[in-house]
């Protein structure tokens, strides 16, 4: 088992509850959709895995190690194995596609002679190698998301977290991105993706964890977006 949440509660300083007493586990190489209305706790779930936030109670285990207890100096090393992509890509506008991806290797002090090959491999995997010398603002949204995925997987992380990665993209482009994510998952990387896109979830039939008000209300192997009606009151988009 790769990831385990053990009785995890997160209450924010404002008093809002992110997660409440969540217990779950995710195996190596799984593809998991996190669904649920806005504010249900999906982003909290993901942020706990990168140690961007700490739980108020409970343990988050990665490879058997309680990552809520690691020293602050160890957090960067955790983030080299648990990478995250976002709805807004977070690319650096003054760097080319190639440099954006290489940046992730350089700032984690990978030897210079290894960087070129690794970047090219990652760009190829996401299908954007022909645009390596272009700048982010010369690319479409879908292409930018591919670059951000390449940057996330370039150090060969164990886990890829995707926080609504298709949120800003049209349906066709979203499918392209899903294809890339599935390809990465096939290579052995665990993918956890939060989404509001019902079609994608329904068609792909992967594991679905549904959150509502910080609690897991459904966890289906080969699930669909809509569970029981009572949990589907709010479905934006």
């Amino acid at each position: 088992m790769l990831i385990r949440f053990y009785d995890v509660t997160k209450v924010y300083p404002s008093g809002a509850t992110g997660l409440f007493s969540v217990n779950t586990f995710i195996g190596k190489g799984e593809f998991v959709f996190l669904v649920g209305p806005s504010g249900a706790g999906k982003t909290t779930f993901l942020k706990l895995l990168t140690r961007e936030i700490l739980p108020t109670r409970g343990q988050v285990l990665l490879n058997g190690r309680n990552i809520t207890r690691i020293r602050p100096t160890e957090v960067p090393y955790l983030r080299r194995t648990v990478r995250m992509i976002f709805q807004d890509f977070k690319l650096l506008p003054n760097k080319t596609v190639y440099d954006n991806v290489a940046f992730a290797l350089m700032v984690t002090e990978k030897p210079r002679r290894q960087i070129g090959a690794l970047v090219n491999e990652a760009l190829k995997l996401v299908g954007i190698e022909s645009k390596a010398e272009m700048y982010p603002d010369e690319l479409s949204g879908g292409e930018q998301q591919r670059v951000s995925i390449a940057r996330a997987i370039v150090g060969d992380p164990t886990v890829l977290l995707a926080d609504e990665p298709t949120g800003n993209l049209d349906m066709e482009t979203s499918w392209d991105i899903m294809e890339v994510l599935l390809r990465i998952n096939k290579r052995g990387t665990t993918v956890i993706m939060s989404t509001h896109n019902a079609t994608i979830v329904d068609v792909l039939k992967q594991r679905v964890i549904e959150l509502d008000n910080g609690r897991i209300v459904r966890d289906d192997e080969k699930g669909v977006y809509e569970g029981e009606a009572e949990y589907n009151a709010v479905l934006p988009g």
Partner: protein
Amino acid sequence: MRVRLSTMRYFLAEGWKSTKRNVSLISLGTMAVSIFVLGVFGLILMNLSNVNSNLRSSIEIRVYVEDNLTGQGLGALKQQIESIEGVHRVTYVSKEEGLSRLAKQLGEKAGLVDILGENPLPDTFDVRVFNADSTPDIASRISNLPHIIGVNYGQGFTEKLLSATRFIAVATVVLAVILLGAVMFIVGNTVRLSLVSRAQEIEVMKLVGATDWFIMWPFLIEGMIVGFLGSSLSGICLYVVYRACISRLGLVAPFIPIITETAPVARLCAGLVGLGVLMGVFAGGVFIKKHLEI
């Protein structure tokens, strides 16, 4: 911590790029002026202690002896003075020698001595002591001996010089602290600007797992560069201005024992540059740590 050469190059390039983007002439100028003022105080302090040690090494007690003393009495008195603890050397100067010395000191006005007719000077002993600090004590013991009219060692002057030196030293330290604040503010401001302009980059760095040290290095280097530029500017100015001053002063008032050698002044200027660099790194580090929450 082992740092790769390519990583070090990256830090230097980023630090330099960021400095160019964010440092202004006004902030560099302010910093240079601050350090310059500190340097001026340093130079005054150096010169005062130089004067002080010169004076101390040349301090002499002049002992005036009653006129009616014969050779034997003078010999006995000399022995008595020599036996006082701390006395290094006692030299007898007869009233005739004293007069010719005075004539020499007066130079072209030596004719005055002839006008006096009779020699008005008493016989004297010039007393050298081992430790300048014990001068007042020894002088008072000598003055208690019989047949002594008086003693003179420039009473009061050395004490005044010492207290002036102490005052300047304290002022220099206080000033250094105030200027440290100014330098911190300037470097902090530059680093703040670069923090804003690099916010996105730092976010990505944290996201992909760059260590805190890796993120901090370019900022430390930026502080170092700003500190170096500001203090070099003031170091060079200070050196040039001081050289100009001593050549002028040498013409106007050659009797002032000002430091004219190059080495100690150059050392002070180099020290200022070192101080500027240290303050820059320190300010950069403090600021970045506070604002990155790392």
